[in-house]
């Protein structure tokens, strides 16, 4: 049944904007308020806890900075993948998506290194509310990175066979969002001492 019946609704576009693109933007809008709530809460706490200054100095700014560069580069690959998809070059789009996934993997490795050194130095989730926020925010962001990697793998596999090329743009939009969230996390948790 599901194969036989493709609802007309899925192909209509009264706004002229592809439905998938609309949906991704709505997803991101609801994600923005989630991260927004978390970070707003963090900022309020930060203002009332001057001693967090000292705690924050124990995060590894170099690792965080390196990761920022990695994410920005991976976003660039996502843009190039989108361009390739627009030209109808599925295999090239797929290769560029794999490069994006590689960036995500490096990011996670660095993150794992940071977390393990921090934990081994006693800066655990429970040490102080600062660290609770730190692990929760970077963890939630990390979950988004992992989800992005899974989706990109699926989409790249499709794109390699020139199928569903429009999804390359959608995952790219999502990936820029993940990138943008990090751009907020990095100064809030690493730089602002």
């Amino acid at each position, binding site marked *: 049944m599901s194969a*036989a019946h493709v*609802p007309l*609704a899925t192909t209509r576009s009264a706004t002229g904007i592809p439905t998938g693109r609309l949906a991704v933007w*709505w997803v991101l*809008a609801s994600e923005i308020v989630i991260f927004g709530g978390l970070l707003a809460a963090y900022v*309020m*706490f930060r203002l009332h806890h001057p001693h967090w200054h000292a705690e924050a100095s124990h995060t590894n700014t170099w690792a965080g900075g390196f990761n920022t560069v990695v994410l920005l580069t991976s976003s660039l690959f996502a843009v190039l993948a989108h361009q390739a998809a627009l030209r109808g070059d599925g295999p090239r789009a797929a290769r560029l998506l794999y490069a994006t996934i590689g960036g995500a993997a490096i990011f996670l490795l660095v993150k794992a290194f940071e977390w393990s050194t921090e934990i081994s130095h006693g800066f655990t989730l*429970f040490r102080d*509310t600062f660290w*609770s926020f730190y692990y929760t925010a970077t963890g939630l962001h990390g979950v988004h990175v992992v989800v992005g990697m899974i989706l990109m793998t699926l989409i790249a596999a499709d794109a390699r066979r020139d199928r569903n090329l429009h999804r390359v743009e959608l995952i790219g939009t999502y990936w820029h969002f993940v990138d943008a969230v990090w751009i907020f996390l990095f100064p809030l948790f690493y730089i602002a001492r």
Partner: protein
Amino acid sequence: MSHDTAAHAAAHGSVWRRWVFSTDHKVIGCQYLFTGMAMAVIGGLMSYVFRMQLAWPDAPVPGYGVVSPGEYNALVTNHGSIMIFWVAMPVLIAALGNFLIPLMIGCDDMVFPRLNRLSYQIFLLSALVLLGSLAVPGGGFGGAWTSYPPLSAKGAYNLTPYGAPLWLVAVALEFVAFLLGGINFVTTVMNARAPGMKASYIPMVVWMIIIASILFMASVGPLVAGAVMLLFDQILGTRFFDPAGGGDPLLWQHLFWFFGHPEVYVVLLPAMGIVAEIITVFSRKKLFAYNTVLLTAAGTGVLSFLVWAHHQFVAGIDPRMAHLFTVTTLLISIPIAEMTFVFIATLYGGSITFPTPMLFALAFIAEFLIGGVTGIFLGSSGTDIYLHDTYFVLAHFHYTFFPIAIIATFAALYFWFPKMFGRMMNDTLGKIHFWGTVIPFNFIFIPLFITGMGGDHRRIYSYENFPMQMTPFLQELRIVATVSLVILLLFQVVFLFNFFWSLFRGPKAPANPWRANTLEWTAPSPPPHGNFATMPSVYRGPYEYSVPGRADDYWPQHVAN
């Protein structure tokens, strides 16, 4: 062409495929409806148990037994959570939205049918987790639907080490289901409208469900973040909300009410939309000031984000902040009053008839008015400091939620039943049910306003622990409320009988029994898979009733001239 194959496949598919794993928006709508109705029965029976306890303290409740304090708390908490998250939202938004949106905008399904099915499945899972949370060791969560920490944050405080996290997981799953559903609704209305369906031709109830979905998406985010933090507090032992560990319980109150107050409008707006559809049809008049209603609805949505701290007047917030929130709260009564006036102006001079859906729609306006007016007392920080957390508050919000979640829902069910199931409900039974619901409802909650002013604090297991509150007068009022509740619940049996009897035995419904204009009535009753034989085009707004110079007093949206 695709429709023939679809209808063919649907007719021959297994029961499983057709009813359980269907992606048809109407089937999913009905799944939400029946799940919501089942949860309403459970939530209603819970209120029976705890009200009996309050009327006759410590006596065994017929059909249940003696209520322990822990059970009392769990019942209250889950009654509130169920009524809002598993009855009002699924029925008003998910069930009606799913059923009505594609039919009313003139297309054959949602733009993401499989996402739609997934959202129901997650919702069903959330309901099962919630019910399961009542059966785990330690019992169900009893820290109120607002789940304030630090009480809710540690098993050692709330004595429900499994019930509390499970409750939170259930609520979180429910949010995920509604986020997915909302994205589907909004994109469907943006992109899948029939040719000619301009924004100003969209029926009000569709608009309201869309605005409500956007409101939900915009308000729930911070609470999702808060829920993650609370869950970490509960199961990992972080101290986000525990002052003993550097956390702050007020933070939760801000995150919760930033969502909690808009949530009232999330369920209110669809109810307003239902009433708009019904009163135009049964007074044969155009909706007074369509554009203004839309603007006010959107404005109410925006304003609803600026009032949350009126729930925290006694929580130790800065008095200057209390002033600010008093002002914004009182401001919000203006748009709401405006909508009520629009309804009255629509009725004015109409040729009104009173079938059951119309009675419920009118009762909604009248009862909701009481809820709104009593809200003014609570929105003013001065009076709220005295009335906070008494039964006055409780009666107030039931005067808003009961009309929304119960009265407007009944209006919608009696109105769209013929379209949903292809048969008519019995109008006489409907009217018996109407009076049997609306009269006892007032006899439950008017007494509770009085006990509230008499000092009854809410969430109290037995007033015998507070001898001052055990005057014969107050106790008699509690008994009146409880007896009225039992009467109200008994009359719901009339509804259930009418509903299920009509489902199988009711007279066959014509395509357009109420002579309404909107597109859903041009499809057969019940609409087949794919909805319309030919996709409609739209020529005018939804409320062209009694247009001078026309033979019929209605002028359907799809008729060219």
